[in-house]
């Protein structure tokens, strides 16, 4: 028999890419999906890719989803690899979510409150029955309009503040907030960097961690103080102008979890907060983020650090799905040099073991 050394890697790669392109397109008799269709009709996937890709651009996120055949982690990776080549012109001012144009706002802690509860476009009370009508194209009736416009709504936590029952906002850190896309993580990681890591973090990972805190792995006694979704204004201050100008709106989902806190020797019992903020309409992610944010404050608040969600190093080093998928999938790269060295070691260990056993047998 003949042994043919593995050659032609370059041609194999070209062929693989051609096959991939053909597979991505699928049956040519079916109309090709457009980027605009993805941006409009697969919006939740677009939101997730923008969040985990750290880039607010619906068209590019939709393109990435098309290019990755709907593999959302692959799409986030595509978006990030593009984002990293873009020059940074300026930092925006902090967005004012209190001034958000509200599409949805609910609180689980009060039956009613100023501004009211606004359900908005939610799946919450849909019965999860497959809607076979969607399988065929049909026109959708316009949703009824509100009888009066929804105005600005104060945050729930600001309504409680005067009683001192709820911790105040931390004073803004001096200087620019940290940015882990420019500086490697170092510990102790400040909360701004932690929140950035969570906002970019994998939704599934944060969901599992947040869920684990509810099952006793670092309990935080959470209440959904408020969840709001809508459009917030982004402002920048150009140095040559010296005052803020509006450069556009972005869709955000914000979650304020309110958590019981026993108090300490110096601080009376009060409620603390965990915070979640993500691009687009992504309530599950914002809520999970708020749970994990609060769990990671355990040490700061004098609580025992016992559970995975409370271990800042563990959470921050494993929340990034682009890092995680790369390293998990790199196991499919050739490792035969290392495997060969292990083979020799295991063979040697078996020989070492066999020799005394043979002696005993004699």
């Amino acid at each position, binding site marked *: *028999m*003949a*042994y*043919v*050394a*593995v*050659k*032609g*890697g*370059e041609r*194999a*790669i070209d062929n693989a890419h051609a096959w991939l392109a053909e597979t991505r397109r699928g049956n040519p008799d079916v109309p090709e999906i457009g980027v605009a269709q993805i941006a409009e009709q697969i919006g939740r996937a677009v939101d997730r890719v923008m969040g985990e890709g750290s880039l607010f651009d619906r068209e590019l996120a939709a393109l990435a989803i098309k290019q990755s055949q709907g593999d959302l982690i692959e799409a986030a*990776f595509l978006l*990030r*690899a593009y*984002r*990293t*080549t873009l*020059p940074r012109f300026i930092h925006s001012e902090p967005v004012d979510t209190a001034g958000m144009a509200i599409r949805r706002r609910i609180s689980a802690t009060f039956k009613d409150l100023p501004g009211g509860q606004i359900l908005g476009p939610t799946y919450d009370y849909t019965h999860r029955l497959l809607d076979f009508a969607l399988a065929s194209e049909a026109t959708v009736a316009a949703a009824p309009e509100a009888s009066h416009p929804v105005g600005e709504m104060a945050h729930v936590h600001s309504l409680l503040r005067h009683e001192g029952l709820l911790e105040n906002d931390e004073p803004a850190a001096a200087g620019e907030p940290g940015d882990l*896309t*420019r*500086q*490697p*993580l*170092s*510990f102790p990681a400040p909360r701004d960097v932690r929140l950035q890591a969570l906002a970019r973090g994998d939704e599934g990972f944060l969901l599992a961690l947040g869920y684990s805190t509810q099952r006793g792995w670092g309990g935080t006694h959470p209440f959904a103080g408020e969840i709001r979704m809508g459009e917030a204004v982004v402002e920048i201050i150009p140095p040559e102008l010296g005052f803020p100008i509006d450069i556009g709106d972005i869709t955000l989902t914000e979650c304020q979890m309110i958590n019981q806190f026993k108090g300490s020797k110096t601080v009376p019992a009060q409620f603390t907060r965990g915070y979640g903020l993500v691009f687009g309409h992504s309530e599950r992610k914002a809520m999970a983020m708020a749970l994990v944010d609060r769990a990671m404050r355990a040490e700061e608040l004098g609580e025992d650090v016992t559970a995975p969600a409370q271990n800042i*190093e563990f959470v921050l*080093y494993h929340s990034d799905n*682009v*890092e995680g*998928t*790369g*390293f*998990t*999938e*790199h196991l499919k*790269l*050739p*490792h*035969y*040099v*290392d495997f*060969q*060295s*292990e*083979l*020799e*070691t295991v063979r*040697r*260990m078996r020989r*070492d073991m066999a020799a005394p056993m043979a002696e005993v047998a004699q």
Partner: protein
Amino acid sequence: MKGYNFAYLDEQTKRMIRRAILKAVAIPGHQIPFGSREIPLPYGWGTGGIQVTAAILGADDRLKVIDQGADDTTNAVSIRRFFARTADVATTTKTADATVIQTRHRIPETALRDGQIIVYQVPQPEPMYRLEPSRVETRRMHALADYGLMHVKLYEDIARLGHIGISYDYPVMVNARYLMAPSPIPAFDNPKMHMMPALQLFGAGREKRIYAVPPYTEVRSLDFVDHPFHPARAPHACGLCGAGDSYLDEVLTDDRGGRLFVCSDTDYCETRRADGQVGAEGVPVGMPGGAVEATQ
């Protein structure tokens, strides 16, 4: 490549990486944190090595890329193409002709010389991560040069197995100060790092660390006086070129225990065969048939 800077990275990123590389050379074996960028290859596939190579590469360089010792494995091909596209740089498979060699898992058999640079792709820069997963803790251990944990692990191996049970990524002491992961090269390659004339740079993209060994620097594999370091290779000669001193890949040829041992360093093997060396199961280069015949 249109729309991108020379060697893909922007100049500000290159400056950041270059500063980290200089610190790494000044503190041999110490891991320098750097602002690793997201680049268009997945983490774990050489993103650290690629960033280091992109930061040092110039139009005058000749680049060699190997994976498992071979120039033609798919990831080596892919990375070589990346630089051919983004930096229009000359590439070579000849170890002796290369000015920069990016490698995954091997050091070439041909001795490297003064002026060459070898860039290692590093999946896990922390040599103690299996013993202490917290990088906050291991950083403290490096600061104190407290490597007792690793010595205990090796000692326990000897007590239990009769010898040290690490066969690749075998930890080394650099310049008698820092414990360092040599990247997952076989322990067979470790001695090549000691007093190597070439500059050795290590890039870990996902873990965001760069480290280095300057030329002519002491690199000792950890061992004990009564259990000296013992680099292993398969006890065979290369079936194609007959080399008895090279690291070998074991290739299965059937399901009845048939196997062929061949050099993992393809350039080394091809150079020897071009010089007329023939192994027990090879045929001379240039014989009709094209494929390399191997009887079992």
